[in-house]
């Protein structure tokens, strides 16, 4: 599989970068798959009635897609993800016609030896929508070998 090892990686290296186009269809699909049917994710009238600017993407959808470029970089093996955390800092507003574009940049934050002797790294994600970050402290700890 992937030949990444500690000696190949330097803190600050960009290991993956990907943009995702979200539409209302994406949100409905995620609602069904996850079981999160909060109507602020598909009904404008309800979203605005609780003070939002419109329908928002599920935070867990943003979290879920933001790790995918890292999984792809790991050769598609999501089992190499050991720990994944995010803070939800800004909403992703999904326009009914234009949708929303979310960009993920994944950089090496730390290289480390894991307790079992395997090589590991912390990958830091920068996730942006409309030029602003929407996740804070988005960190993925991975096994490289």
């Amino acid at each position, binding site marked *: 599989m992937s030949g990444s090892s500690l000696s190949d990686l330097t803190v600050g290296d960009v290991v993956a970068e990907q943009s995702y186009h979200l539409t209302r269809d994406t949100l409905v699909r995620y609602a069904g798959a996850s079981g999160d049917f909060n109507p602020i994710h598909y009904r404008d009238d309800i979203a605005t009635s609780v003070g939002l600017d419109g329908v928002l993407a599920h935070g*867990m959808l943003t979290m879920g897609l933001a790790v995918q470029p890292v999984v792809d970089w790991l050769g598609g093996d999501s089992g190499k993800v050991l720990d994944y*955390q995010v803070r939800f800092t800004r909403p992703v507003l999904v326009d009914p016609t234009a949708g929303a574009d979310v960009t993920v940049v994944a950089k090496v934050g730390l290289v480390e030896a894991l307790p079992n002797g395997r090589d590991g790294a912390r990958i830091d994600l920068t996730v942006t929508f409309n030029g602003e970050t929407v996740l804070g402290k988005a960190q993925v700890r991975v096994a490289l070998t």
Partner: protein
Amino acid sequence: MNPELAGRSYPATEPYLVGREKVREFARAVLATSPLNLDPEAAQAAGYADVVAPPTFAVVVQEHTLAQLLGDPDAGIDFSRVVHGDQRFTFTRPIVAGDELTATLTVTSVKSLGGHSMVTAESAVVDAGGAHVVTAISTLVVRGDE
């Protein structure tokens, strides 16, 4: 919110059987493209028993524990004011189709900050043999009165 919630645990949830099609459905919903998430043969070639769930699939199991907390009248959490603050998953191994999972939630902290309350809950997910699979940690922010 009940300030004495910290330290409280809820009973283990009913077993959740992870279905292959559910994993594939969830994988497509989070825009995953890895064959290990979608194709049983690719997953088996990589050493897994069946398709591997994307990392955030654990939220589907965690949801059942959060429902216990939010539905507990004694917890005093007004669901209409709840905002998801942060989320973390710590894995011993990935979830794979065929797993039968149960989850146990413990409230680890309750804080007040500027009129808002924050509750952090850890849901430990174990397999049918009782072995740890993943712990899902959520901080929920309960907005105060405007």
